[in-house]
């Protein structure tokens, strides 16, 4: 078994500080990306990502390579991001109406109110360019409830399997599947009008 990240953790445990710098370099873009999309804030994402790596560093003497390093650091990233999100919500109480998502329902389908997305959505007819589609997609993802958003980002954006997504979120496989299905169906339903206008190029078949 040759997990290069575990090897780096082992080296760090022995006192090789350069191994930590290598770990940071290997993981910083992935951790910052997930934190930024979970928190919907680049500035908050940098703070969270720094905290994630400091937690990795602090665990250097007790780290046991029992699970994949990737599962471990994703779990730290998810926990730190969701904690930061909750702390931010506590500091900034919600006011005003929240946007709604078609097909939403149930406790976990509440729209995340911390930061309503911008309201200048031009509608399908005005969508002429691909970056407009990207902006709409981003808004739809931003408006997902936080656990659905985290799950779909781990699975699709970061490319984790269902099983690894469940492990990173400390959920059962069936709970992760359920979150992923709801997230995916919601995004599909909200994106469908844009897809049907032909704004999205067909994917090659």
């Amino acid at each position, binding site marked *: 078994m040759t997990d290069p990240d575990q090897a780096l953790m082992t080296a760090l445990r022995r006192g090789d500080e350069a191994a930590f710098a290598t770990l940071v370099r290997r993981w910083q873009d992935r951790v910052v*990306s997930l934190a930024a999309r979970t928190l919907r804030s680049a500035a908050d994402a940098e703070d969270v990502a720094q905290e994630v790596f400091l937690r990795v560093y602090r665990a250097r003497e007790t780290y046991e390579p029992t699970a994949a390093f990737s599962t471990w650091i994703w779990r730290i990233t998810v926990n730190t991001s969701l904690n930061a999100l909750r702390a931010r919500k506590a500091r900034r109480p919600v006011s005003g109406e929240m946007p709604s998502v078609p097909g939403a329902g149930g406790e976990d389908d509440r729209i995340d109110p911390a930061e309503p997305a911008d309201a200048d959505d031009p509608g399908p007819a005005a969508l002429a360019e691909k970056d407009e589609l990207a902006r709409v997609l981003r808004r739809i993802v931003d408006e997902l409830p936080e656990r659905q958003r985290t799950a779909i980002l781990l699975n699709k*954006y970061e490319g984790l399997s269902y099983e690894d997504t469940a492990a990173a979120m400390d959920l059962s496989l069936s709970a992760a599947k359920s979150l992923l299905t709801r997230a995916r169906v919601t995004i599909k339903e909200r994106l469908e009008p844009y897809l049907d206008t032909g704004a999205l190029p067909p994917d090659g078949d």
Partner: protein
Amino acid sequence: MTCPHLTPEDLVAWTDGELPAADAERVAAHVASCPACAREADLLRRTGDLVAGMPRDPAPAGFGDRVVAAARAESAAPTKRAPRRGAGRILDLLVIRTWTHAAAAAAVLVVAAGGTLWLARLERGGGTAVPGALTAREEEAIAEDLYLLANLSALESVEAEELARIADDLDVLEAAADAGVNGEGG
């Protein structure tokens, strides 16, 4: 989802290649004969691809260096364990002192209500109430502590020096209680 033959979970998992072989065959067979599900599967697959292709937010310039510097600063600092902060630390202190007094078969019952301080009584194991003898300075220090204790959530922001001072004040309380218990405070 419009088709009663497939659950949304099955269809999504199928487009993701996450179904066991037998289930995947069943879904594939259905999709091949059901235009509605075929369209649905296509939309779900394209949706997944779009999320996968969302732009990245790479780490800002200098991020790695800042993290490494922060880690180094941490490990260069004295290696003593970080003390529990705020309310947790105060609770630790109270637990220690409660047990100390239990050992002496004495209890200090202090009630703080609405900013009014009542040193209710210093009671010996035998049940004889002994009035406490506290100086004005001691009462003041205790009142301050009780106010803080009544507002534990505010203690989350208390710094280490402040905690040390509170700990000292708790020592004053403890000493006063001992004095009362030993009958020396008359």
